[in-house]
């Protein structure tokens, strides 16, 4: 292996970004991941455990972790915090009203995690294609996003089914991360 190869390898390593997708069960995390990755999304079963995908995006290598959202496995979320550059929090905008309190509590408790400090936070207000879906402004209010001082955050209304605004969101989070960690390049 020549010196150039070694340098190149190091360089490639540097350009890796680790993204963690979390949210309550049935929020659409896996659908978003598969849609971004260009896979079929017609038959997605609930995630028991996690999915991981690596994809190239604007010259970055994204390692995206999508962990199941059912209550009983949320205690495992913390096993995936290490080295996370970006957190994507997915919300079912057409969810039953009583679940938004749960959603808010889980999100805010994540933000107190030391290992997630500094991670850019993207909130996907998913399922905008469904009738009765709340707008991203309404979701922002319900989740009290204004109170977040610790993280760079952005909320984007999207639909994993139609693909609307997924790229807008991903672009924001990748740009925000790259500004922060690759500024010296």
């Amino acid at each position, binding site marked *: 292996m020549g010196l150039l190869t070694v340098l190149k390898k190091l360089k490639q390593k540097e350009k890796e970004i680790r993204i963690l997708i979390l949210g309550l069960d049935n929020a659409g995390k896996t659908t978003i991941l598969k849609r971004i990755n260009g896979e079929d999304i017609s038959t997605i079963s609930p995630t028991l455990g*996690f999915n991981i995908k690596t994809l190239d995006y604007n010259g970055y290598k994204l390692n995206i972790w999508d962990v199941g959202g059912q209550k009983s496995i949320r205690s495992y979320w913390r096993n995936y915090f290490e080295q996370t550059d970006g957190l994507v929090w997915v919300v079912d905008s057409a969810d039953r009203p009583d679940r938004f309190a749960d959603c808010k509590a889980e999100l805010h408790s994540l933000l107190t995690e030391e290992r997630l400090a500094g991670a850019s936070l993207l909130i996907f207000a998913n399922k905008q294609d469904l009738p009765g879906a709340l707008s991203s402004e309404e979701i922002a209010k319900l989740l009290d996003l204004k109170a977040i001082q610790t993280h760079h955050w952005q909320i984007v209304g999207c639909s994993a089914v139609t693909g609307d605004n997924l790229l807008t969101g991903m672009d924001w989070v990748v740009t925000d991360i790259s500004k922060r960690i690759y500024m010296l390049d």
Partner: protein
Amino acid sequence: MTSPVLREPRRSAAGYDRLSENVAKLSTFVRGRGKKTTAPVDLMPVLLALLKAVKAVVRYLTGTTELFRLCDRVLEDRRRGRLRIEGVAGPSGRSSGEPTSRVVGSLAPPAEGDLVERIDRCLAYSTKLTSERKAMDSGTLDVDSVVQGILVAKMFPKAGDPNTPQAKLFRECVDRIVETSQLINQLTARAATKFESGDPDHVAQLFTLWDLALPTQPRPPRESELWLKLGFQGRDPATDFRGMGLLGLDNLVFFAQRHPRSMKRMLEISHHPKAWFSLAIVGINMTSFALHQLRKRRLYSLTTALSLGATATAFAEFYSYLMDAFATTWAAHGEAVTVMDFPRVFKAFRKTVKKDLRAGRLLVLNTAAGLR
């Protein structure tokens, strides 16, 4: 060095919106930005062309077609007594479910299922029979006339006389293929049927599942934390049936109904304090996997061997086998696994099942339907 993101002018938001409107375009867009999955040369067409050339030569030299030779060879083997379905382990009557998955029987030499599979592949690769193949996939066709057309085109003896042994065997195989297509369409439609909380039939079926799986415990309300006991994700099981629709529920009910002891055993395993898993969610993932195998037409050896044929019941028996075998696999890991290991364990399990299917193993619980 500046990163590409910073150097590139920001694309306008309007541009993105326009793109994301078109779902198909979106995926190519993302792929186009990365360097994913671009093999230098696609070898498939080259190989297919080679195969076709070889076939043409053989056809020219022998005056027979591959379809005919496939059928003829099986008949020849039968005459010599080489092809016989041999002992499937365990009794094959229908007694109440014995929870064991060590009962994988095997069909000694690849039998009729293998022939159907090869004929199916042969038809799929033929460029001259695309319309016939499409008709078979849709499951709505005049089998007689389609088969007759193929018999003539593929030079079966006596100018495609449907009464020669080879022609009859071919017809049987086509029937299996059509039967399977119909089943695929039927089950795909069921999987696409959403669980509607407002539909009394759907709700009744959900409660039936509870009664069968936990007969000693009173029914919970429609929405309740109690559903977690069956391995649903939350208070409302309805949301978990996305993806596999009512087929997921059908399969779970069938498993609990026909193989109650196996279901009970699996539930117990799933409630392990450390190595627990969510049974219903595993079930829905299993439906998805089983349906995929059917769609890929890997179940011919199963459906040709069972007297049930390619029916929803045969499919559900296959599903029941998978559930039982998965429970065994999971339990064998003891406390070395947690629910987060499910993806890894399930992946290895799927690999084993596919291998068994390729080997022509009969993947049903021994109490399942008998052989043809």
